């Protein structure tokens, strides 16, 4: 992976150059957060449902080995070929080998964050395979040559007028037409041709049922179904944490997923793929890519409970005001910020700091991942592992040295306040990021400590 040039703060600063666009982005996502709230409030036992989902997932993580083997056995009995990939490269090679075996050069793919994580599209393109993403939002960002900015709403950062222009350039729609219904129809027309001619369809997996060996894919557009039904080969790609023990557990997760994601009671399509139809081949690729390692890290393992609903992104005040691309990882927002450093600490050292630790993410999480606590823990791990700038390290060390010595603290406080009062330019300048858009606090005549000694000690009140 290329070393990134800018960190989150720099890209967020860039995003904030257009305040009205930030407002629009914030309001669009907040609207979805509010829809989620309304949907949740319609279920009296919502919190109990979250707790149950969390416990089911905990059980899965505790017994992942057994569930995976059970799933593999059932899937094989259903006539599915099961592949195991240790990492992203292996996953990409397996998928490519299947496509090659069938002599195909054009394929369709429905939404899969795992394939984004593995950079499958880029890999296949390098091998001369054309991949068409069939989820409308994903197709839009694909035409624009961008990664998705949100796991559920891949093009949430695009305005309809901009999509009209993009479609004009790529699909030949009339210039200036930004009518969502018209543009959707144009995309359908365009995608339909791809569906009809593609012999291989890749899908992601929302849930893999150990008991039956089936995979469940949730979409609102039916694009996963259409792709699979028309293709000779179905390749379902999934992270190994997608397992749930039994079919009945879908009753918990399907209720939580769509409500948390978009505020819908359920996704339009919840498609179960159990066995290939006659004449069709079905493959499931089980991908580890760091998950086993994560499973061993007590502080971080329960991030693997994630069902990719995106609720933490919609509620995150930082995500809403910095945009998905500022995270520079397939999964943006709070959950991405605790997953990404697990894959590459150096590359993603900025992400756990792109948060105020407000805790809203943990509260909306349908499987109760303690996201904000893990952000705090990642900060400790990153600093201890040396992924911190020397300037910051020196600054914080200096701060610690002052704050652990009461005498020096009082002295520095008094000196600092004196300078702020009489030579304010020392802090009120361009080098102080606080002062750029905010006034510094007014300097009081004395500290509380000084006030107390002056006003209370002589009254005989001593600590």
């Amino acid at each position, binding site marked *: 992976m290329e070393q990134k040039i800018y960190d989150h703060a720099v890209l967020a600063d860039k995003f904030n150059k257009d*305040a009205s666009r930030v407002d629009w982005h914030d309001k669009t996502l907040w609207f979805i957060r509010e829809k989620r709230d309304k949907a949740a409030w319609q279920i009296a036992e919502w919190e109990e449902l979250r707790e149950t989902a969390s416990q089911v997932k905990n059980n899965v993580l505790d017994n992942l080995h057994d569930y995976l083997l059970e799933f593999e056995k059932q899937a094989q009995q259903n006539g599915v070929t099961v592949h195991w990939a240790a990492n992203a490269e292996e996953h990409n090679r397996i998928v490519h080998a299947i496509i090659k075996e069938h002599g195909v050069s054009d394929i369709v793919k429905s939404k899969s964050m795992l394939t984004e994580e593995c950079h499958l599209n880029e890999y296949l393109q390098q091998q001369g395979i054309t991949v068409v993403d069939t989820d409308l939002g994903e197709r839009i960002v694909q035409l624009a040559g961008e990664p998705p900015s949100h796991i559920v709403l891949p093009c949430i950062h695009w305005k309809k007028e901009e999509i009209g222009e993009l479609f004009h350039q790529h699909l030949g729609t009339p210039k200036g037409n930004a009518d969502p219904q018209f543009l959707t129809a144009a995309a359908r027309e365009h995608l339909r041709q791809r569906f009809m001619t593609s012999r291989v369809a890749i899908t992601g997996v929302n849930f893999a049922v150990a008991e039956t060996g089936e995979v469940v894919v949730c979409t609102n557009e039916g694009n996963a179904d259409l792709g699979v039904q028309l293709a000779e080969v179905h390749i379902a790609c999934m992270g190994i944490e997608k397992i749930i023990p039994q079919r009945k557990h879908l009753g918990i997760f399907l209720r939580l997923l769509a409500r948390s994601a978009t505020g819908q009671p359920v996704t339009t399509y919840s498609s179960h793929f159990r066995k290939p139809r006659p004449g069709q081949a079905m493959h499931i690729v089980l991908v580890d890519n760091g998950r086993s390692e994560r499973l061993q890290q007590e502080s971080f393992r329960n991030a693997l409970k994630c069902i990719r609903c995106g609720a933490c992104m919609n509620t995150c005040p930082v995500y809403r005001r910095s945009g998905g691309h500022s995270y520079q990882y397939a999964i943006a927002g709070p959950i991405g910020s605790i997953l990404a450093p697990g894959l590459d600490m150096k590359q993603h050292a900025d992400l756990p700091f792109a948060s105020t*630790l407000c805790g809203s993410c943990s509260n909306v999480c349908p499987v109760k991942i303690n996201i904000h606590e893990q952000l705090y823990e990642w900060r400790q791990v990153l600093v201890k592992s040396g992924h911190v700038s020397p300037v910051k390290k020196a600054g914080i060390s200096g701060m*610690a040295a002052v*704050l652990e010595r009461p005498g020096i603290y009082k002295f520095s406080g008094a000196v600092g306040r004196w300078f702020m009062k009489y030579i304010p330019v020392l802090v009120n300048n361009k080098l102080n990021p606080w002062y750029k858009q905010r006034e510094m606090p007014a300097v009081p005549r004395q500290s509380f400590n000084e006030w*107390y000694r002056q006003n209370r000690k002589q009254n005989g009140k001593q600590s």
Partner: protein
Amino acid sequence: MKVALFVPCYVDQFYPQVAIATLELLEKLGVDVAYPESQTCCGQPMANSGFEHLTHGCNDNFVKNFSGYDYIVCPSGSCTLHVKDHLHATDEKAAASIRSKVYELVEFLTDILKVEELTSSFQYKVGLHQSCHGQRGLKISQMSELVSAPFSKTEKLLHMVKGLELIKLSRTDECCGFGGTFCVAEEAVSVKMGIDRVADHVAHGATYITGNDMSCLMHLEGILRRQQSPVKVIHIAEILNAAQ
């Protein structure tokens, strides 16, 4: 009941009136308050930046200052939460004892003193900024994300203040963007979050913005003053202590 007053470092240095109001309020309510004079900081600025391992000296000093009291009361949800969750020291037994005895001012008033009436008066329209660590960490009020019965310890106290009109907000508990070192490390987003919070209060007619944490209010004040807005910030201790 022997209570120690824990004053956050930035309150000590920049907002002494908040600590004075807290002290006076507690005394009015008949509490015997001590102020350990060698206190400095809870260590949160280092720990939240990833340097928890550099907080030992700070923590030992905290334990030295605050051991032996029945309660430790602090006019900040954030500092209180940090002590509750992360205070570890050479004397671990003493640290554990402190973790279980530290209270944010509002929760101390409602849960321990069980305050049911106040003599204070504050004749203004007030917007309440719910600081995240107090709200979501200490559970001072119901949170908008959760499907659960509404309550607010802070509002309960504000309703006891004569003449005070609490305004409604569009977003009841969105973060202001202060976030400790986040406020300078992620300056652009921090400020935008603050601007948006301020706008919500202003649009609903607030004359004052209050809250349990002066750090959030310091950030909002910085923005209000840059905007030359007539709206002011005031810590809840100052309102609850405001004389009739």
